[in-house]
């Protein structure tokens, strides 16, 4: 009886301990992240690694999402004879929802996995242990600059994604389909509030930046120091980060909707 219960109980206790450890790790990363700015070189190098290398996928996907939104939005709006609202539809869906969420998902896939793999391989190669032997804190030296870089990059990438999407919507809606350009922009400006809509989008992208960076680094740092362990950790990063992003997105959207 006790042995039958003990397995799920132990599993539950292990999970709870993991949550507690994760929270502690998160707070430590936040504290050390601010301290990491005393060595901005490390952060700049990581921004280059995390941000610049994600630029191409973000820009191209933003443009393509904009194209699709332009086409789909036109298809629906035409039924109500309000094609001019296309600009509003494209921009609102991008800055409020798709920009932050899709950017975060792509960012988890592009940058999150590479962070996990890098940290995991460092661990497998015993570089982390070596640092500890030399009394260098690996969390401060390796993880914190990466954490900060991901935090800085996420809102910028989300902004770029949304801007490219708006351009994509403009190209399809105005240049190809022939929606009136003035109405496209003026309806957009009339309907998009720069604090309510764009500001909330930026807040979302910052929260997602925290999520992706934390999950990627935590999973990488806790990976089994074997090739299989690193491979498994990389997969875990994508799955956990994506689910966390979508779950948080629902909560944030609900909070933001209820405020207005």
């Amino acid at each position, binding site marked *: 009886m006790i042995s039958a219960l003990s397995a799920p109980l132990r599993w539950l206790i292990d999970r709870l301990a993991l949550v507690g450890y994760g929270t502690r790790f998160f707070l430590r990363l936040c504290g050390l992240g601010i301290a990491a700015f005393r060595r901005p070189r490390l952060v700049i190098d990581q921004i280059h690694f995390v941000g610049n290398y994600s*630029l191409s996928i973000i820009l191209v996907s933003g443009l393509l999402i904009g194209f699709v939104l332009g086409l789909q939005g036109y298809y629906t709006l035409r039924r109500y004879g*309000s094609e*001019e609202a296309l600009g509003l539809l494209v921009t609102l869906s991008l800055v409020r929802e798709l920009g932050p969420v899709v950017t975060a998902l792509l960012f988890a896939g592009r940058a999150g996995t590479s962070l996990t793999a890098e940290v995991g391989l460092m661990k497998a190669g015993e570089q982390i242990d070596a640092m500890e032997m030399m009394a260098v804190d690996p969390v401060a030296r390796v993880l914190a600059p990466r954490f900060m870089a991901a935090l800085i990059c996420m809102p910028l990438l989300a*902004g770029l994604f949304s801007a490219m999407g708006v351009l994509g919507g403009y190209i399809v809606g105005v240049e190809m389909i022939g929606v009136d350009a003035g109405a496209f*922009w003026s309806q957009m400006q009339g309907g998009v*509030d720069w604090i309510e809509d764009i500001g909330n989008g930026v807040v979302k992208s910052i929260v997602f930046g925290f999520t992706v960076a934390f999950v990627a680094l935590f999973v990488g740092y806790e990976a089994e120091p074997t090739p299989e362990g690193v491979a498994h950790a990389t997969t875990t990063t994508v799955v956990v980060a994506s689910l966390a992003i979508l779950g948080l997105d629902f909560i944030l959207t609900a909070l933001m909707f209820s405020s207005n």
Partner: protein
Amino acid sequence: MNRKLVDLLVGLFVVLGFSALLFLAVRAGNMSGSLSLSDTYETRARFDNIGGLKPRAAVRSAGVVVGRVTGIRFDDQTYQAEVMLALDRRYQFPKDTSAKILTSGLLGEQYIGLTPGGDPQMLAAGDRITMTQSAVVLENLIGQFLYGKAAEGGAK
């Protein structure tokens, strides 16, 4: 990689990111860019009620966009709205052209429709379109309808 190059690339990325955010804020905010037609002449029109007309709305004649609303202000002498219209220089309109505020679609954007008259003289820059028809305000329309119904009921 070279330090200078990394700095340059990161700087480029950060500048790009912030300019994208600025682009969104400016485009969505009301700091309107100059998307006016290339070569225009300005005319004015007074309306009793412009409804939901907005600056940068289209001016159409026979359904074709011939200009744009460049400004709307309230005239406290006549208690009317004065609307500035920038019309494309390629199109000339007679002096007795009339302007109407219309709605595209059932709930769509409002625009100004121009109906040309028969005057041999043409509108010039700075002229005023005198014959105007206000926007249809749904509440007024419903009010009139209800009053009409009530009057009918009383007559019976």
